[in-house]
């Protein structure tokens, strides 16, 4: 069973690699503007379009539990996503402190926390993809808390 899954996975990887190799257009993400830390707090909880909802939730140092502010924002996202047919990518991130692979796991736990919350609110699990970038993609590159707090995040894309 495992080997079958792996084989499929590898086949997919070959196809993906081929596609990437053939395409010269790189999937450059738009630069993520550094949202202020308070964005989640002030975000409207209901009744606004997806475009105006803040799409980043922040986390405390070395934690992957959702803050009350994050829950409020995610409730609004859940309302939008329940009716939508689009799929969403949840990208987990960590600040630079500590080891890289641990931070990769931390980003994963954060993305999973957001996913689980959204699923609990009725969003289809199949429409949510999670990926962790750990500390590899900071939005703020300083070496202090003002940068770190912006980097401990999950982006809803």
């Amino acid at each position, binding site marked *: 069973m*495992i*080997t079958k899954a*792996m*084989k499929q*996975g*590898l*086949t*997919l*990887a*070959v196809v*993906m*690699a*081929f596609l*990437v*190799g053939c395409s010269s257009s*790189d*999937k*450059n993400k738009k630069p993520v503007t550094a949202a202020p830390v308070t964005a989640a707090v002030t975000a409207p909880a209901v009744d606004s379009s997806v475009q105006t909802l803040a799409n980043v939730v922040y986390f405390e140092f*070395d934690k992957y539990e959702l803050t009350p502010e994050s829950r409020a924002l995610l409730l609004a996202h859940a309302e939008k996503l329940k009716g939508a047919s689009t799929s969403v990518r949840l990208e987990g991130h960590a600040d*630079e*402190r*500590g*080891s*890289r*692979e*641990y931070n*990769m*796991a*931390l980003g*994963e*736990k954060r993305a*999973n926390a957001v996913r689980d919350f959204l699923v609990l609110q009725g969003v289809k699990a199949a429409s949510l993809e*999670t*990926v*962790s*970038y*750990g500390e*590899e*993609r900071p939005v703020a*590159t300083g*070496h202090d808390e003002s940068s770190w707090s912006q980097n401990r995040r999950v982006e809803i894309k």
Partner: protein
Amino acid sequence: MKRFILLAFIFITGYAQAQLTNITISHGIDNPTRIAVVPMSYVGGKLPEDISEIVRNDLSFSGQFESIPVEKMISYPQNESEIHYRDWKMINAEFLLIGSITQQAGRFYASYELFDVVQQKRALARITVDGTDTQLRDIAHRISDKVYETITGIRGIFSTKIIYVEAFQKPTKYRLMLSDVDGARSRALLESKQPVLSPVWSPDGTKVAYVSFETDRPAIYVQNLSTGHRDQVTNYHGLNGAPAWSPDGQNLAMVLSKDGNPEIYTLNLASRALTRVTNHFAIDTEPSWTTDGSGIYFTSDRGAKPQIYKVTLATGQTERVTFDGVYNARGRVSPDGKSLVMVNRRDGNYQIAAQDIKSGNLRILTETNLDESPTIAPNGAMLMYATNFGGKGILAAVSLDARTKVRLPSKQGDVREPAWSPFF
């Protein structure tokens, strides 16, 4: 099972421009051995590499030696009859290395002899090493290895290599680099716009495993260093990270979250059989094999804060290994199996620490902040790690007794995640 070998669609480039330069001895031992490396004679013009200078730099890099500057030397003896010990005692040399280089049919031959100035006797009978013009650095490193071993009794690491990651901003670019241990002769093994991380050597030094996000998701790849062939070994949902080769080279430990949570697995590279090792709702990551391959050290926050644990593979029995400090992660075992090095947090600083496995005693080896990714030299005498200096990511090295520290600043980009090769 069918193996898919991916030809690298990302460039395997030739020699790159970026090099680690200007090794800085930031803290040496109080009483390093003073050695005079006399310029080696060569009839036939200027060689593309200064072998004597490379040997001097190698020995200084170890922190255990102080190379006497050429300007202070009173004479340049080329053989034993030309040595006047008094000249060398006057400049406090303890050892004297002399030699000559000759060329014959396109090959270079370096002959060298080592003398003990204090005891006024030969320490090493004449040895000749040879190579082509592109191997002059190899010749120098081999001389350094022999001199270092003769004087310290420890095998030298100057002929080993390192792999590391270079990251650039605007535009974002990541490169997996291979170089000599002093940073020379660097070349890119992989270049990508997406993150590349966690490089590790196979125990035989022929391959590297690493994580690349080139498909927009993390996956583990194994790349053959001589052929450049790449093999994508994982493509699971979620995390595919922290590869670690078993001592026999047959298995790759890794972290996957395909079953819902970051857990440690082992993958048999021949059969592709995957075995789950840990099962806990907390984070389990950063596997590192014990030297005998019977167990795996890993980082887990199952006790609320990240600490290092050890699981015995045959029984699944798991025990906590680190207790000193609120954060201990990414353990690596020394070649003799006696020490575990790790990232330790105290007073808000992240530093490299070494724990004596038997006694549990922990010692902090570095004094900077944001230190990470320790990798131990195959002779167990030094380790390299990544740190910040002047706002940039750089590599640094420290002896396992913490007495000597060396910085290897880079010309460009952020340099991180060094991985020290085994002996070749």
